[in-house]
């Protein structure tokens, strides 16, 4: 009988890009497989398992069925890891929470709206205990491997909590604001190695907020660089509608 950790991989409401990123571990996939038994992964394999040492869960919770399934997975898992921003904060799905849910359903399905039940898009942690987070839209392979390695070795993974600006400075990038663009780097949690500003794009905030974000100052900076207050708020909400709930105005 194998003593390797039994791993299950699950998905809820999301694009499955984080899962795909695992199939994209072309260089590490075989090494990863050598250290664990993947016992359940619907996107890649047949079969189901009763218990998991580690459950990696992608996606936000947004239907009654999601709530039932996540409780079931939690009960059968020793360690549960939220994979990607949808699972950690609700992610881009949570923008729908900023508008009346009935209006949203009617716009999409019209008179057939009652065929398909829906809830506000929620992070896993609002329903079950989450042991670790791997952030990002999509999560980076580097961070996944770090968390994975720590768990397999019985160590505690460390979650970054500085702003993207810190990593951007370390890469000696010209500040995005200097180029006449806006950027959410000052309030966004690092760990991505400032990937977007390093290739000419602004930080869209995809990794969620740092633990003590100065949202008011961020809004002020965005407005000072030409956005309306509404537009500044919309930009900040893109991945962080849940986190910003109750923060600021």
């Amino acid at each position, binding site marked *: 009988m194998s003593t390797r950790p039994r791993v299950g991989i699950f998905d809820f409401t*999301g*694009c499955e*890009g984080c899962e795909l990123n695992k199939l994209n571990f072309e260089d590490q996939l075989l090494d990863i497989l050598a250290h664990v038994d993947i016992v359940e992964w619907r*996107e890649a394999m047949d079969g189901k398992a009763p218990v998991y040492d580690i459950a990696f869960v992608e996606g936000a919770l947004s239907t009654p069925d999601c709530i039932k399934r996540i409780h079931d997975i939690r009960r059968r898992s020793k360690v549960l890891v939220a994979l990607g921003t949808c699972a950690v904060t609700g992610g881009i*799905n949570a923008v729908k929470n900023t508008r009346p849910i009935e209006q949203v359903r009617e716009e999409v399905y019209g008179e057939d709206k009652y065929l398909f039940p829906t809830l506000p898009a929620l992070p896993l942690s609002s329903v079950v205990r989450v042991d670790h987070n791997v952030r990002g839209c999509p999560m980076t392979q580097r961070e996944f491997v770090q968390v994975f390695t720590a768990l397999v070795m019985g160590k505690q993974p460390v979650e970054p909590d500085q702003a993207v600006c810190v990593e951007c400075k370390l890469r000696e990038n010209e500040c995005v604001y200097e180029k006449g663009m806006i950027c959410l780097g000052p309030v966004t949690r690092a760990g991505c190695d400032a990937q977007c500003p390093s290739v000419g794009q602004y930080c*869209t905030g995809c990794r969620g907020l740092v633990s003590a974000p100065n949202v008011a100052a961020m809004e002020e900076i965005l407005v000072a660089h030409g956005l309306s207050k509404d537009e500044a708020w919309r930009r900040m909400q893109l991945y962080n509608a849940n986190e910003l709930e109750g923060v600021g105005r």
Partner: protein
Amino acid sequence: MSRNLDINVRHLTRVEGHGDIVVNMRDGVLEKAELDIVEAPRYFEALLKGRSFHEAAIITSRICGICSLGHQITSLKATEQALGLEVSEQTVLLRKLLIHGATLQSNVLHAYFLAAPDFLGKGSVFPLVASHPEVVTRALRMKRLANDSGDLVSGRAVHPITPVPGGFTRIPTAAELASLRTRLVEQMVPDFLATIETMKSLAGAIPDFSRPTEYISLRAADEYALYDGDICSTDTGCVPDTEYRRMTNEFVVAHSTSKHCRVNRSSYMVGALARWNNNHDKLCPTALEAAAELGLKPGCTNPYLNTIAQVVEAGHCALEAVAIIDRLLGDGLKAEAPNQEPTRFGTGVGATEVPRGILYHEYTYDRQGRIARANCIIPTGQNLANIDDDMKKLVPEVIAEPQEAITLKLEMLVRAYDPCISCSVHLLDVTFKGQES
């Protein structure tokens, strides 16, 4: 033959997203044969409404991790048409390079990791690591290179960063492109030729089934259409992409959170097999040789052979990527900034061939450059009615077989379409009713 049959496959494995296969037969009469789409809806309209044109492609790429590049490029084309943003020839070539790389990656992923286990009687690719290590290593190597090409040109293969309205935020260097070209020629081409041999050895496991079908894809005069072209039906010929609504006709069915589509028949098929049937004359000689080796013929009506058409296409994409790099390097790379000064605010349509078939985005912008209306029609949504029709023909033909064998044939059928269920649900009818533009 009188027989009862109840098949209910909940959350079909090795497809992207959540779907159930439901088949019921009572006393030899088929009551139901359908793919139920149970993916949680994501209501993308709530995300797009009122959003700046800078954000449209960032948001729509999150519809699907597997097709993020396709959504992004299609979104950019729709935005650029709506805002009157001209793009350079270099931008078009770089986008074509991205699309060929993404199609190559996706086709390899599906053929090796999601479909091939069925041909070998396995539940996943993982047992093949031990039994067929050289095949798995080759598949990973091909995927790695295709993804590296996406990382290089777009900053990141999943949810690309650098493609923006009007161009790119970063242009790759000539040295980077030259090194990619070398790897494509020295590594991808031999791996593709080996792939043909592998697939040939597995092709015996592909069910013999056929159903006359309408096939719809883009078609271009001068190339195998992926980036743009007219909408072409095997039944009625070509129309411009602006007529996409007439060529899709979405409607709601109760068993699917994704809408269904039809044009000239009760259903139609999009994807690699549709592209093959419409555009095989535009494939490069290497891909045509691969098709001959694998027994893929024009006018093919066996949906299981969609996987084979994907393999053939993968070879074309690899060689076309080399040709595109040669053009880029021959013309000389220019350090261009994206053109982001709108000349108008109106409506624009983008139509692109993404791995699973033709994808449409349409946006209307208000005078502040914010989205007032959006509509996106996804390949898998277009295929759903066709999958149901295939199942209805297939089940009576194989009814004498054991239930397990029937179930496997149904699962293989759905997988052959390489369905991307997240996609098909994530952007249903994204029309904002009563919105002023």
